[in-house]
């Protein structure tokens, strides 16, 4: 019997003490998986602008991690969002800080977030709109859903994760699936470039 190939995603789990970026339609799922892969019982902070219509649904987040450990900050604008994110990253009381951005970061803002994350040794993850990446990011991911006709309809979570920037490693793309009952990420295959 042939041993199944185990695929490894480079730069995942995300390097702590750095700020990463993720874009694309499945970015929220990527963020949820990141929190779920972190240490148990480590709290997380989700920073978003209060007016944004799209909001993460806690009933679905519950299948990724324990929602009771998550605190959400609703800010009035991007300046406040960045201030809150910097404060939380520097403090280190939360393991993951998810930041929903609406405008591109300048190099100074991106660098300040990196320094804060380095001081607090917590992981930052910015959810960015299409094409608004910052140069200071450690890694940048692009996540999309992939049609998945073979799996049962309730359980089709096939996604394509593509790493488009990596300061300390190679790039690549993988097809992954989230196992809801085991709360585990299954890497299906390494998709070719």
């Amino acid at each position, binding site marked *: 019997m042939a041993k199944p190939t185990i695929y490894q995603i480079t730069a995942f789990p995300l390097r702590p003490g750095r700020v990463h970026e993720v874009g694309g*339609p*499945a970015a*929220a*799922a990527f963020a*949820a998986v990141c929190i779920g892969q972190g240490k148990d*019982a480590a*709290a997380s*902070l989700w920073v978003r602008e*209060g007016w944004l*219509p*799209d*909001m*993460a*649904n*806690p*009933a*679905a*987040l*519950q*299948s990724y991690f324990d*929602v*009771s*450990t*998550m*605190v*959400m*900050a*609703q*800010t*009035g604008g991007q300046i*406040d969002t960045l*201030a*809150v994110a910097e*404060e*939380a990253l520097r*403090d*280190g*009381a*939360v393991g993951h800080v998810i930041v929903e951005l609406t405008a591109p970061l300048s190099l100074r803002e991106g660098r300040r977030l990196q320094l804060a994350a380095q001081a607090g040794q917590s992981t930052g993850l910015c959810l960015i709109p299409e094409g608004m990446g910052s140069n200071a990011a450690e890694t940048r991911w692009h996540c*999309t*859903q*992939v*049609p*998945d*006709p073979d799996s049962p*309809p*309730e359980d*089709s*979570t096939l*996604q394509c994760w593509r790493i488009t920037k990596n300061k300390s490693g190679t790039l690549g793309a993988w097809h992954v699936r*989230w196992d809801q009952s085991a709360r585990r990420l299954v890497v299906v295959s390494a998709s070719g470039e």
Partner: protein
Amino acid sequence: MFDGINRRVVSLWFPRLASDRALRARPVAGPFALTLKENNANRIYCLNAAAEREGLHRGMSFSDARAFCIDLQSRPADPLGDARFLAALRRWATRYCPWVGYEGGDGLVMDITGSAHLQGGERGLLTDLRQHLGRAGLSVRIGLGDTRGAAWAFARHGEGVAAPGEGAEMLSEMPVAGLRLPPDHIEALQRLGLRTIGQLAASPRAPLARRFGPGLLMRLDQALGRQPEEISPEPDPPHYGVRMSLPEPIGLEADVMAGTGRLLDRLCAKLKDRGTGARTLCLTLRRVDGDSQHVELRLARPLRDAARILPLFERGIGDVDAGFGIDQMRLEAVQVEKLPDEQIGHSGAGGQGRLDDLITRIGTRIGLDNVVRYLPADSHIPERSFIVAPAAWSKPEGTWTVPRPRPLILFPPEPITATGAQPPQSFRWRRMRLTILRVSGPERIAPEWWFDDPNWRSGMRDYWRVETRQGRRLWLFYTPQNPGWFVQGEFA
């Protein structure tokens, strides 16, 4: 030790406390009444002397009163405000003696034993009381006796002053209503022919006790001084404020922080003594030019740990304009909550404390109400299946039960053009053309009729999970009662 023989008690009765208070604020000439809504009818709560002369009385329906007295003026009553006013009067009355307690909702009782000479004797004290209260616009009846019961009787039933030792004699002529008895007891005593306190005291005790219970004889004995009765002065509410005056003005941030640290140590010791923790702190910095600067700190959890609170002040103090210098500092715990001592544990407690401090710091920037957490709620309606609660005032609790898969992203419903009860083969959403790979559903969710939710006025919804060939997995719904298709969420 004082044996109580020479005890002297003053009872004050404000027969028109509520209306006097209202008229103090805005005087009115002529009949005036305060009304309170009781059992769906406005009734007279309190009225002034002019209105009483017109034949009105308390408890009368207000419409009747207006029929009797055409030029009656009225305002709504404020019983809570009256209680606060009486508390202020009680505090004021401690200028005569330290022992001042409440007597019902409209009276005070003062134990002036040994303190009357400070006002020039009992006569001087009563004159002074009358003058002050009269000038304040309050009508008052004052009774002075050897016991609390006697003083009460003198205040309510014919004002009087009993010389030491003569209280029993004066009481014996008074009606039994002067004994603080329930109304049915007074009526029953009058039917028995016992009209005065003297008659009651002379009648045999055992049959009275059998008929009326021990309360009647207790009140009688208390009035006559055979049984002691204490006056409990109200304790002043604890004051959580500390202040510091500086010999030289300061302006450096580090100096202000050091001063705040010293104030915090004193305040936290006070909080610890009382088993409380501060929820909101206010630091007032008074500058040499007479201006004051305020720094408010709202905490995510009640705290009394100076070392933890002090760093949280950093941001607020950094924004203060010191001007030519600060020479007075005052720190007050504006809002205080119970904080019992807790066992220090090995696990978890430290992390929670750090998170609370972080919430506090974030809250100083974006407002403590904007730091929230999700709590589960018992509803099938997707947007009501969770509660967004401020993290500072809620605990993570409850269990999440998700019977059917729910989308990861929720947004307000966005209409798409489609017809029919089955999902369309292709549609446009957010300027994308999507074709369907497969669908699962429908899941019918009916609106909760006990809430009037404008978003659910279109009736029940059939939810479909739709997988598209382009990859996106969407949550569509169809409203059969008001045909139309909408997208409300997106799955992972």
